[in-house]
Structure formats: C-alpha cells, structure tokens
C-alpha cells in the first residue's frame, strides 16, 4: 500500500470558502480520511455530522506557576520574563497563564525554587465516523497557545486512520493565515488547494500563501470562489496563476444556495447546481495530477 496522499485546503485570507470546498470535495473523493486542521475555529464538524466520536485530551506545553508560600517577591522572574507573563497582584508575583510561553527561564532563575512548570490541558481531539468516511477534528481551548502542535496531532491521527483503513487520500481543511498552524498543516502535504476570492484582500493574501506553499515545495492549485463578484480581479488572478505556472482548478460563482445550505448545516456540494460543475473539475484535475505522478514515480 502506498503512503496516503495529503491534500490540504488553504486560503491565507479567512472566509473565502475553504470549508465549503473541503466538505464538498469530501463527498466526491471516495477513498479518503477527512480532517479539520483549523483547530482554532473548527467548523467542518457542523457539516460532517460525526458519530461514534472518540478522542482524547491535548496537553499543551507546561506553563509556570509560582508557589506563593515560597515566593519572596524578589522580582527576578518578572525582570527576566520576555513574554510579560508575570504581574504583581496585591503584592504577590503571579503568572498570567495565557501569556506564559513555557520557556522555563523563570523557574530556572528563581532563587527560592518557588516556580514549577505544570502541564495544562489546552484542547481535545476527536476521531469519528461520518456518512463520507472517517473524520478527525479537534478543538483548541479559547485563548490557548500551541495550535500548531494540535494540528500536528490531528494530522497524525488522520494518517494512522488512513493507513489502517488503507485509503489513498487524506483531505484536510486548513486554518487561515500563514503562521504556525498553517505551517504545521503544510508540512508533509502533497497538494494545496488554495481557495481565493477576487477581492484586493484575497489576491494580496493569495500571493503570501503561495509563497509559503512554494517554500515547503508543495504543489498548489487555485480555486476562485465568487469569481463573478469581480470579473476584472478574477482575470488578474488567472494571469498571476499563469505567470507562476499554477493551475486554476475551478471557478465557483457567487451563490445564495451555498449560504442557505450551510445555514441548514448541509454540505453545499450535493445541493447547489452552480457548485457541481466546478467541483467535478477540481476533483478530476487533482485525481489526474496524482495518477500522473504515480505513473512517473513508478
């Protein structure tokens, strides 16, 4: 059995339609495990309707805690901390756990050994069944850090499932932005579907995410969502893609049907006529890409 291929859906800019495209593709792809790597603001579960949900806690990096009985309030920790995580409250030095980065400097520097590092639960991960296959997702506690590590955990669980189920693909809905969680999503991926929209903001973010994807040497293709909202900008994206040798996988028009289906918590791909044709095109182009790749690798 070959190693499952990881297909990730990213966008840079938020709200361009990643989850719409990822969930609709999950209906088309037969041989796959589905994962939601947007652990900060996980939404795919709303459409996937998971059951048989199992999972576990996700432990974050240990953070510092000051034992107020041993603390002599010398202030050395506060002077050294580069994350502004130590405050004086009613005369007592205290760690702000949301700001603590877990670097351990304060605990090493404390002359009274009054600072201990303690693990905190920062989220949960789940694996489940859905009508469309196995589905892994997670939830980071609001305000927590380390979402990159939780993304890695989600991907790892999805990979284990993909291997035990002997499926060909892992289809991953990714987070917005270009930071740590996106980097964790991209690392080890085989294909990035970048969902963009023809706005100036969308184009600006598209260019940044393409650079990141190139940096990780991941093949990318573009989906232009709501292409008819601004045909002129759509043209600009097509020219940009052409100049940079990136495939345009498909173009999706603005559609009230998509918004209505999501409001009803159903996957829009099966219901909305205007989505069907571009989705089939996207699906076929990706399948062809991997079939060709498999041939040449052999």
């Amino acid at each position, binding site marked *: 059995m070959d190693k499952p291929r990881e297909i990730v859906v990213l*966008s*840079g*800019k*938020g*709200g*361009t339609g990643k*989850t719409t495209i990822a969930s609709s593709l999950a209906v088309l792809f037969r041989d796959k495990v589905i994962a939601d790597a947007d652990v*900060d*603001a*996980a*939404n795919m579960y*709303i459409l996937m309707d998971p059951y048989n949900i199992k999972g576990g806690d996700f432990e974050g*990096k240990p953070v510092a805690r000051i034992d107020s009985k041993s603390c002599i309030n010398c202030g050395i920790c506060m002077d*050294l901390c*580069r*994350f*502004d995580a130590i405050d004086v409250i009613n005369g007592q030095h205290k760690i702000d756990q*949301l*700001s603590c*980065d*877990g*670097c*351990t*400097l304060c605990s*090493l*520097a404390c002359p009274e050994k009054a600072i201990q590092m303690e693990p905190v639960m920062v989220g949960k991960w789940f694996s489940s069944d859905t009508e469309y296959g196995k589905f892994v997702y997670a939830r*980071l506690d*609001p*305000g*927590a*850090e380390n*979402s*990159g590590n939780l993304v890695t955990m989600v991907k790892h669980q999805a990979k284990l499932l993909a291997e035990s189920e002997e499926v060909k693909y892992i289809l991953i809905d990714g*987070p*917005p*932005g*270009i*930071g*740590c969680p996106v*980097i964790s999503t991209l690392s080890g991926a085989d294909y990035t579907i970048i969902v963009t*929209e*023809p*706005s*100036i*903001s969308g184009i*600006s*973010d598209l260019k*940044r995410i393409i*650079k*990141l994807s190139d*940096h990780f040497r991941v093949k990318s293709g573009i989906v232009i969502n*709501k292409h008819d*909202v*601004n045909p002129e*900008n759509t043209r600009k994206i097509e020219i940009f893609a052409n100049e940079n040798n990136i495939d345009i996988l498909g173009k999706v028009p*603005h559609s009230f049907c998509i*918004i209505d289906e*999501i*409001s009803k*918590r159903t996957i829009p791909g099966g219901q909305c006529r205007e989505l069907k044709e571009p989705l089939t095109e996207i699906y076929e182009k990706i399948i062809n890409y991997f079939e060709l790749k498999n041939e040449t690798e052999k």
Partner: protein
Amino acid sequence: MLLGSTKKNRQGTKTMKIAVISGKGGTGKTYFSTSLAMSLEDVDFFDLDVEEPNGYIFIKPVISDEIQYNLLVPEIDEDRCTFCKKCADACAYNALSILPQLKKALFFPELCHSCGVCSFVCPVDKALIEVEKGIGIIRKGKFSKGNFIEGKLNIGEPSGVPLISGIMKDHLDPERTAIIDSPPGTSCPVVESIKKADYVIIVTEPTPFGLSDMKLVVEIVKDLGKKTGVVINKDRGDSKITEEFLRKSEIPIIFRIPYSLEIQRSYSKGIPLISTVPGIEQKLKRLYEDISNG
C-alpha cells in the same frame, strides 16, 4: 496627567482603545474597523492581523516609516563553546542541538521563541551571545483621520505574537483613540491584540460557522473581563439563532451591515464601507460615542 483620570483628546471627547475581532475569518473585521477609524477624528488605526494585514487597502495611508522588528536569537561561538549542552537541554522549543563529538552547535531559528533561557544558562563567557533577527516589518504612516500602524510578519515565521505585543508596547499612545484590527482565530495572537483594549467589537456573520466561532471568542472576551458588543455583517434578516445566543449571553448587537452584492463588489475593489453605503459614517460616529459613554 493624573493616573486614573478620564483620558480626553484635543476635541475633548474620551479616547478609547477598541479592538475588532471575529473568531471566524472573513466576516468583515477589516472592512468594519477601517470604516470605523475613517469616520472618527484624530485616531490611530492598528492593523494587527500580522499574518495577512489588509487594512491598508481601505485606509490607503501614506507610509513614512518601515521599521524592521527584531527578536533576540542565540549565536554560538564554536571556538569558545565547551559543548556542555546546557543550552540545548534548557531550550523548551528544541531550537538548539549540540554535537560534542563533532564540536558543532546547531541552531534552528524557526523554532526559537527568543526567551533568552540559553544565554541565561550558558556557563562560558561570550560563548553564546544574543543577536537581533528580523521577524517582520512595522509600517507607519498617516491617513486623513490620523496615524496608521501595521505589523507584517515575514513569510515562514511561525508566530506573530511577539510582533503584536511589540507594536502594542511601543506604539499604543494612551492619550489617543485607537482602533485595532485583530487577527482571526481564537488563540494567542487574538488575546495579545485585545489585552490593552477598553472595548472589544466582535464582527460575526449569521451562519452556523460564524456562530460557532463567535461563541469561542465570547469566552475569551469574558475571561479577560472586557466590555463587548457584536456587529452582524451580511445580515439577511434571518439572524435568529445568532440573535438568540446574544440575548441569552447578554451581549448587545451594536451594528448591522446588510447582505448586499453591491457591498461585496465595492469591497472587492478596495472601496471602504463608508464610501459605499450613504449615511453610514454618521452611524459609526454615533456608535463610537455610545461606546465611549459606556
């Protein structure tokens, strides 16, 4: 100025620090916050969505300064280093690797959090020093209503948090009104961007996705004890589930922007909300007054 006295600007109105957040991306944070800033006088606009800063598209500032934002990272002098491994053992991020047999010290800058623990534990004089490394750019400039300050994270850098906290520390003027465009999501960077805010505006869209993510940011805002109100964007008049949640949570709906293709077209061209919907500038001014009067 006396500590604790009400801060007022030149016009004599109260100065507030208002952060605009959303949880879910693409709900209209930037679109709303830029127009809010543009409808006020004497205001500082901060773009802290450092991974994807887009506020400039609507504000159209004249940029006068570009400052590289640096963090301290270790540099090891292999001639002085005794390869004792204390730095690598202490590093919580596995950013250092010491190979005594090969007399090599390896540093992985993309893993470094610039905490300084390595230089603290190094027992040898000048074997490990800290040097500056750029992680992003701070762009400063002016627009018709005040100052523009933007953070832009370098591509490939894992975390925007230091850049966000650096901007807040060095550029937030306590005497001036500030509108802060925050990053999406519900984790660290968002917390960092709203820590110093007097009021947090949550921009949501009335979909199950918008609601699910808004619930998470509401928790953060409550944990931090911030006053908050919600803007419903892309309102099609059927926002019942969202409204019900807000009523139960006792969070006011402070503004609505209708769903309109015309607005979307205008947005896509980089035209701000106040230049698209007539009369909205006055409404935003009043909203600010209402917020600052508590």
